Structures are given as C-alpha cells and as structure tokens.
C-alpha cells in the first residue's frame, strides 16, 4: 500500500496561498501597459535589462546553496532537480541577454553588461530579494527550495503568462512564453521537496515563514522593476525604500 506523503497538504496549502497573489503583483501595471501597447521600446529595454540583472544574480544565490549540499544528503532526484533548476535559470538569463542583442539595444554582451538598464544595483528591490535568497543558504535544502519555488516562482509564472499574452511584439512574446513550461516545472519541484522532506513541526513552521518572506521580498523586487519601467525618471535604487 502506498504511504501518504508527509508534506502533501502543506505543499498544496503553500501553493494555494501564493496563487491568488499572482494577480496582484507590481507587474500588473506592466502587463496592462503592454496590453494597451503603451510601452515604448526603451521601456521594454528597461524591463528586459532588469529581469536579466535579476536572473544573473541567481548564479550567486544557487552557488551559495549548492556549496552547502553534501553528497548523499538527499536522494539523487533532489540533486538532479536542483541542477536542472540552475540550468533553466541560466537559460532564462541567456534568453534575456540574447533579446537585448537581438533587439539592437546593445551590440555585444559586454556592452549590455555596462549599460545602466542592465546593472544589478545592490541597494534596490532586486538586491533585497537576492540577498534574502542568498541568506537561505544556512537552511535545509528542502526549506529553501520550498521558499523559492512555492513563493516567488508561483508569482513569476502568473505574470509571465499574462505578459506573454499581452505583448504584441512576436519576439518578446516568445521570449516570455517560452519560459512558462520551465517555471511551471520549478513549482512542481518545490511541491516535490515539501511533500517528501518537510514533516517535522519545526520544519513546517519554518517552511511557512520562509515562503512568506521569499514572496514578500520577490514582490519588492518586482516593485522596483515596475517603477523603473513605468516611471522613466526612476533609477533602480529608488525601490530600496519600499
């Protein structure tokens, strides 16, 4: 007889808690502006540039998480899923960089890296989120994967789908739409981790806390991006005050 997965209900509850928030992220302003075809080429560059900056920083986050994973600490499936998630995030980072070159916003990657729109600013919403995620390196792998995959990733899937549906430009539409299946698989990975590895009361409490914190900090990052895109006078630093 199959054994019930210890964290099944918790995983469902955490995902269900994040799902309704997908309609209330700061990206909604960008989605609406895109649907109304009110975004300029420069604003799309700002959006893609900042998303690229955020995705680049995932190397920094996952690097810290990976260094605390020990051989045989978890079954091979966990290590494989983590490696696959790193690979996917890397693909998304490369897609944004490729879009910047394809659109002619920069001629070479090295010039894109120097462009103000593509900079990672430590004192910004993205900075807050990235450092918050990096700080999870001290927690159990199951907890930090739950935090990122059942919090921010659920929100990301929501805005990715709606933005892809709203954008008229064929290239940009595909840029966002093509990331949807991988992002959806990351949420499933988060569910997998919680279902199988979060059962102790202390872990359950921590898991809830971390998912909530990750979701809050990711929303702050999105707020910074939305401000930067929709208010051209704003620099990425401003979002730190939120």
């Amino acid at each position, binding site marked *: 007889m199959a054994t019930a997965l210890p964290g099944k209900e918790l995983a469902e509850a955490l995902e269900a808690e994040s799902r309704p928030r997908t309609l209330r992220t700061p990206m909604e302003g960008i989605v609406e502006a895109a649907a109304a075809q009110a975004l300029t080429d420069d604003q799309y560059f700002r959006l893609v540039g900042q998303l690229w900056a955020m995705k680049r920083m995932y190397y920094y986050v996952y690097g810290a998480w990976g260094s605390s994973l020990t051989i045989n600490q978890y079954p091979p499936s966990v290590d494989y899923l983590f490696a696959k998630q790193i690979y996917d995030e890397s*693909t998304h980072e490369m897609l944004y960089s*490729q879009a910047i*070159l394809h659109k002619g916003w920069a*001629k*070479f990657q090295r010039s894109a890296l120097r462009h103000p729109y593509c900079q990672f600013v430590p004192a910004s919403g993205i900075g807050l989120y990235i450092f918050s995620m990096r700080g999870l390196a001290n927690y159990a792998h199951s907890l930090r994967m739950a935090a990122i995959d059942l919090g921010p990733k659920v929100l990301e899937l929501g805005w990715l789908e709606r933005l892809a549906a709203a954008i008229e430009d064929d*290239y940009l539409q595909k840029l966002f739409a*093509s990331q*949807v*299946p*991988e992002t959806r698989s990351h949420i499933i990975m988060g569910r997998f981790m919680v279902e199988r590895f979060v059962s102790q009361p202390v872990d359950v409490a921590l898991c809830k806390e971390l998912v909530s914190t990750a979701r809050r900090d990711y929303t702050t990052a999105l707020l910074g991006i939305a401000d930067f895109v929709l208010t051209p006078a704003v620099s990425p630093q401003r979002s730190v005050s939120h």
Partner: protein
Amino acid sequence: MPTLRVDHAKCTECRMCYYACEEIGINAVYIDLEPRHRFEIDAHKCTYPTCVVCLMYCPAPGSIVEVETGRSLVPPPPDLWRDRSEKWLRDVILAAKERP
C-alpha cells in the same frame, strides 16, 4: 559559403558553442524561442569557415555538422586546422565588430 547546423540528436546542450561565439562577439549561436530552448546557429551571422571557434570548444562528437556536405565537424577535421594564430582571431573579432 558552407554553413553549420546543430545535430540535436548528438548535442549535449552544454552551451560551450554559445559562450565561445558570444565571447568573440559573433553571436551566431542562439537559443530558439520555443519551450525546449534548443541551440541553433544563425547562418546569416555565422562566419564559418573563417571562424571555427564553436567547433574547437564543442565536446560532443558529431553535434555540429556542415549543412551542404553533412559531414561532422566535431572534432574538427584536419583541413580546418589551418593558421589559427592570434592575428587570425583578432581579425575575426574585428570583422564581427565592424558588422552593422
């Protein structure tokens, strides 16, 4: 001019071709915007046979082929090992920079 394509049955998607091509500023290797995100080579940007950087870095035998002849170029056959001096590499990079 002969052109290159990726043989997806053999490519391991390690991305070395992408990084090498981007590093020297040619940007001919790109990620296809479909959910599988496979790597492709843009024949309009690729400067093969002048540049063979991707072939030198690719670790998966048979994964990059010459479209016209169908021959595998990984590992690079001897006729591609011509004068690959520093001056030649500089010329390739300069040519890429000068392209509009």
